């Protein structure tokens, strides 16, 4: 072998070795505070395995007619509506219809409450029946749900002020709902006339993540489980199309997704913005801090969390009154949405933001401008801020 050949082969060998050993040629791990997915700290190895199973079921399981999709549905997988476990996009916004007061849904026999707006080939999707009021719901982020679930009912009752006893114009109250038989009431749960406190969903009409998950499979994807066994298309009880184990894995995944991590929290403008947030009373509904109680998952128990919600219903005024409601909520009442993760919304909504229950607000400022009812005073105070203070407040909200 000639000298030139040895040089060439040596060069190629060194080039390959240099490339393989160069980590800069490989993508780095995204900063923990820049993504919403990932488990809470402190899970055991066994719990990590369940988390991974749930992760796959949530993000990778795609439903087709062969494995239970439909025949009418809204989406073909959980991950379709919750990209990166973040907020959804208008193209997966779902519609609910048929209930306009606290007496219940009058259109259950016509497909209510949820509109299955998609269908398999040859099948007609649902349409909103004549006379039914409706509202559109943009999918929420999934993060930190287990921590919210672990907040004791007593904490929420402590935050509620249904009769506005303190006279501040804000009167949060729980949504009292009937719960399905498969929901196991959490320790310390509070019951009133056979109803329980709902805390998930735009109207807080869902008791826990078990109900949320079983309902989503059934109502969003048309997939029946033993928990929700009635087909949304024909109303008949059918064999389960998904195992209990898979549903439970997804519940565990949702319970143990970490809470969003605030960014730039020591930035002077963010600190000032947080102060303004408090000063103009945003925190009276968007309660900054909550405490979890006991939990069967040790990593969720007795934690201090910063979700910026009180999980209660508030009258938000006529601008946000769609004429549709759930449980004992009034049509203008909405559950305070958690603000944690708000600044990462762009990363799951395609570089834009679609805020409020139906994504109608294209910026945080526009979302604030839609606030009314109990939030009217805070909105007015926000609008009276100078531009610099508004920017600081927005910067704080973007940091969440």
């Amino acid at each position, binding site marked *: *072998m000639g000298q*030139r*050949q040895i040089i*060439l*082969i040596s060069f*190629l060998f060194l*080039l*390959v070795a240099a*490339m*393989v050993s160069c980590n800069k*040629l*490989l*993508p*780095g*791990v*995204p900063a923990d505070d820049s993504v919403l997915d990932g488990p809470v700290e402190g899970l055991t190895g066994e719990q990590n395995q369940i988390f991974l199973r749930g992760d796959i079921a949530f993000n990778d399981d*795609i439903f*087709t*007619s*062969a494995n239970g*999709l439909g025949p009418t549905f809204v*989406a*073909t*997988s959980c991950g*379709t509506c919750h*990209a*990166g476990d973040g907020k959804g*996009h*208008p*193209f*997966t*916004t779902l519609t609910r219809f048929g209930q306009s007061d606290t007496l219940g849904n009058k259109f259950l026999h016509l497909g209510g409450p949820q509109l299955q707006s*998609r*269908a*398999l*080939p*040859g*099948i*007609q*999707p649902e349409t909103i029946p004549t006379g039914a009021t409706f509202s559109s719901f943009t999918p929420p982020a999934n993060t930190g749900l287990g921590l919210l679930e672990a907040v004791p009912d007593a904490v929420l009752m402590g935050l509620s002020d249904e009769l506005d006893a303190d006279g501040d114009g804000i009167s949060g109250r729980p949504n009292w709902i009937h719960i399905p038989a498969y929901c196991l009431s959490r320790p310390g749960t509070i019951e009133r006339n056979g109803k329980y406190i709902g805390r998930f969903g735009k109207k807080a009409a869902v008791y826990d993540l078990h109900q949320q998950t079983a309902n989503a499979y059934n109502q969003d994807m048309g997939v029946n489980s033993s928990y929700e066994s009635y087909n949304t298309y024909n109303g008949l009880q059918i064999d389960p199309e998904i195992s209990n184990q898979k549903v439970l894995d997804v519940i565990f995944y949702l319970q143990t997704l970490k809470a969003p991590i605030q960014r730039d929290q020591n930035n002077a403008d963010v600190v000032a913005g947080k102060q303004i947030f408090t000063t103009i009373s945003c925190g009276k509904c968007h309660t900054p801090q909550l405490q979890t109680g006991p939990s069967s998952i040790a990593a969720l128990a007795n934690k201090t969390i910063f979700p910026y919600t009180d999980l209660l219903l508030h009258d938000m005024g006529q601008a946000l009154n769609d004429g549709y409601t759930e449980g004992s909520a009034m049509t203008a009442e909405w559950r305070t949405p958690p603000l944690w993760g708000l600044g990462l919304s762009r*990363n*799951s*909504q*395609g*570089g*834009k933001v679609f805020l409020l229950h139906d994504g109608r607000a294209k910026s945080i400022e526009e979302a604030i401008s839609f606030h009314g009812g109990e939030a009217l005073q805070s909105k007015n105070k926000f609008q009276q801020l100078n531009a610099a203070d508004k920017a600081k407040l927005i910067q704080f909200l973007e940091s969440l």
Partner: protein
Amino acid sequence: MKNIAILFLLTLSISKGSAQIDPVLLRKPVNDTSRLLLNMDAVYNRPLLAAGKLPVSLGGYVEANYQYLNENGVSEGHQFQMRRLTLFVASSISKRLKFLSEIEFEDGTKEINIEFASIDFELAPLLNFRGGVVMNPIGSFNQNHDGPKWEFVDRPISATQMLPATWSNVGFGVYGKKYSKDWVYGYELYLTNGFDESIISNGQNKTYLPAAKENPDRFEESFNGVPLLTAKFALRNNKIGEIGVSYMGGVYNKFQDDGLILDKKRNVNVYALDFNTTLSRTKTFINGEWAWVSLDVPNTYSEQFGSAQQGGFLDIVQPVFSRPVFGFEKSVFNVAVRLEYVDWNKGKFLSTGDNIADHIYSIVPAISWRPTPQTVFRFNYRYNWQTDLLGNPPSRLAGFQFGFSTYF
């Protein structure tokens, strides 16, 4: 399918296992190299070996590799993969009647496929009949996909995930070629079984033509009784290169069953343009393919399943050292690069009017060594950017692959 493959292997082992064959008895049928070759010739332009008076010629190729890939900072670690073992059996039944089959084992024995098993009957140079399991001539890669011919460990994304390469079906058709000095042109036209509804209802959660390959019945019956038409015209000039234009289309859904109407007929149409050339001065080989897919997606679906896709690849291969090495007289070192792009979903969201993203870019620099023309050792670095439907921050995948592929 597995049983057929096992039977095939047993037959081979019995026929060859009786005694050590004297290499003198082995003969390589001489390929006709005096004439211009098109991609459509690739199926027979393979090294095959005949033994004594055995009525068939045998051949095949194998591909194996190591890879270390990392997606968004997370790696599955070091992976060793046996991607493909492909066996060819060819036979000249008579002067104008020949048979060739290609059976492929992918990822060990995870997939066993008959990729080609056809009788070719020459009526005239411009009129040949082909029937059996044929490779639909859409684009160039589907026809010319043997591992040892490529400098890259992975097959092109557009060819294998947008188009369904390797895509074979049962059917019949005609093909032909004509030469004129520096020019040759050829055509192919086949009617075969086709796609099914899995192309818009699959585990990929997008319009995905390769999903139809999962239908185990497609070599036995058509999903809807409507033939898939595939046609290609290719033209090559000795000094310029080859260009091919191809079309594949038909009904993909089951619109009726037992005489009852289930749905309207929904069509899928695929158009492809391919080109390859070798620059005479630098011996640079350039090879590319671009394809467009359009289909009628039910309006009861969301935009998740695109009604149009497009994508392709461009390979540039530059020989840099063509001298004998380690006793290999025809040894060649190459540097190469592959550029890829696929838009899985061309269109806009009805709700916002924004463009649907759902696309992937890829760049794959490569170094390869061919000790002989039939064998390639290749080192690739891959970098992909994949953006989801909504256009969220892309998922980044990168890593190294080292492997070999050789005819035998």
